[in-house]
């Protein structure tokens, strides 16, 4: 099987700018006061020496507490940011659901946004035209598709975003906590669709705090903490160990709400 996503000794360093000089004025004032601007910049490793390989057709979950580096890893893989050290290799067309509907414009209609969003994801007009009806019917938005997005509810916008990103048949689907789309029946529909995508041989990289969804969707799980790789293995084992470590309060909260 081909490796479609690979990180090798990948690190990402952010600068935490507590009082970073942002304007010329501040720099000059800083010089005047004899303070050096660089002093206030703190370096912070969001990801430290992470290596992983994902093969075609695998569905892999990334778990870990807030600030563990999950989103940073996804952004590096999606090429939104560059690593500070190490290597990233990606093969195939990606559809990154880092945020649903990131490219939507609220003064345009649903129809116009489908084509705009498609081209942001790298798909041309014909490709989007071919999928248009399916996108609309999956999102259940037939009545509103020629209305401007600003008149839609938040849930409707999210549904359209999800529908577009999963209808374009990417090779790799990257999702960051996006299953909280719409009501329960629509969420189930989303899960079904991701499952279909997986069964068709698609590769999934999935970030979630919802351990139920992780168990349902992914056979393999990678646990990140403080930017380092804690564990990489079969979902059952990793999730059990992770839950036992009990450090993710937010996750246990999510668990409770699901179970209630």
């Amino acid at each position, binding site marked *: 099987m081909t490796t479609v996503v690979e990180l090798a000794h990948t690190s990402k360093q952010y600068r935490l700018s507590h009082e970073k000089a942002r304007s010329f004025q501040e720099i000059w004032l800083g010089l005047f006061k004899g303070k050096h601007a660089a002093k206030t910049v703190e370096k912070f490793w969001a990801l430290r020496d992470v290596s992983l390989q994902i093969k075609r057709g695998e569905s892999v979950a990334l778990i870990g507490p807030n600030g563990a580096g999950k989103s940073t890893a996804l952004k590096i893989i999606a090429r939104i940011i560059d690593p500070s050290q190490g290597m990233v290799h990606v093969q195939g067309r990606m559809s990154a659901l880092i945020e649903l509907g990131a490219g939507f414009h609220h003064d345009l209609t649903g129809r116009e946004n489908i084509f705009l969003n498609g*081209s942001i994801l790298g798909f041309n007009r014909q490709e989007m035209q071919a999928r248009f009806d399916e996108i609309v019917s999956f999102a259940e938005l037939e009545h509103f598709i020629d209305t401007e997005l600003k008149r839609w509810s938040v849930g409707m916008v999210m549904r359209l975003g999800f529908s577009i990103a999963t209808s374009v048949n990417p090779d790799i689907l990257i999702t960051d906590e996006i299953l909280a789309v719409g009501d329960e029946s629509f969420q189930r529909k989303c899960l079904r669709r991701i499952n279909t995508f997986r069964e068709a041989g698609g590769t999934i990289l999935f970030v979630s705090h919802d351990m139920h969804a992780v168990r349902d969707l992914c056979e393999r799980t990678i646990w990140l903490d403080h930017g380092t790789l804690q564990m990489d293995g079969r979902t059952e084992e990793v999730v059990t160990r992770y839950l036992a470590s009990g450090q993710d309060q937010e996750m246990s909260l999510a668990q409770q709400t699901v179970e209630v």
Partner: protein
Amino acid sequence: MITTKRKGDAVTVWVTSDRQTRRHPLRFALETAGRLADLWSYRELIRNLVVRDLKVRYKNSAFGFAWSLLNPLFMMGVLSVVFSLVFERASPVENFPAFLVTGLIPWNFTNTSLTRAVNSVVENSRLVKKVFFPREVIPISVVLANFVHFLLAIPVLLIILMFLGVMPNPKVLLLPPLILIHLELVLGISLFISCVNVFYRDMGVAMDVLLQGWFFATPIFYHHWILPLWLQKPAMANPLAAIITAYRDVLIYGRFPDRNFTVGALVSSTLIFAIGYAVYTRYASVFAEEV
């Protein structure tokens, strides 16, 4: 140093930690040119962003596209009145309204493009943070949307000139290359200022003053002949001055533009574009972190 290698649909990005390694300038130039060629595969996105811009801008305005003409026309009216009544002796130009409008419509394109481009990356921060695509698409599409307005304004300009007693002449065929030089200049500046604005928001604030300064420094409501002799050559080193003078030569006087000025404008516009594009792509990879 970050190196990106592409092969088919596979992309590899790796970082060599030593900061001393610098790209050979020639290699940097080649990579930049390659990146410019890659833009072609994103033409659909550029087109859609241009269409979005055009649709959204005049969505709730009664006059719509007409504004891109009304603006320079109002300005032509005001300046004509001021100069022909108040400074009657100070305006040595024949058919002053025609002279003005041929300067103002190109200036309007420059002005609105730069004003909107400077904030374009910052305004699209959600997109930049969440989706991958070549970042230069953003300012380029803003400029192209304004360029569409400019192109649509040109036939109208020809009609206005006819009303003002200037008949079209065959030299009008020289317009396309002049327009392309103009576009190149505006694109280059837009890339540069929109990039600087990501790191220093001062750029956006300073834009008003800079544009006003440029307006007065460019022979738009005056002829460069009225400048002191020693100032004429430096003033025409301003590429926009040469471009607008060339527009007038072609549209009003039906003569070939001054060769030195035009070649100078071509060279400096190309240089500005190359610098703007190189600076932009050099820093584009950190936009998602800074914006």
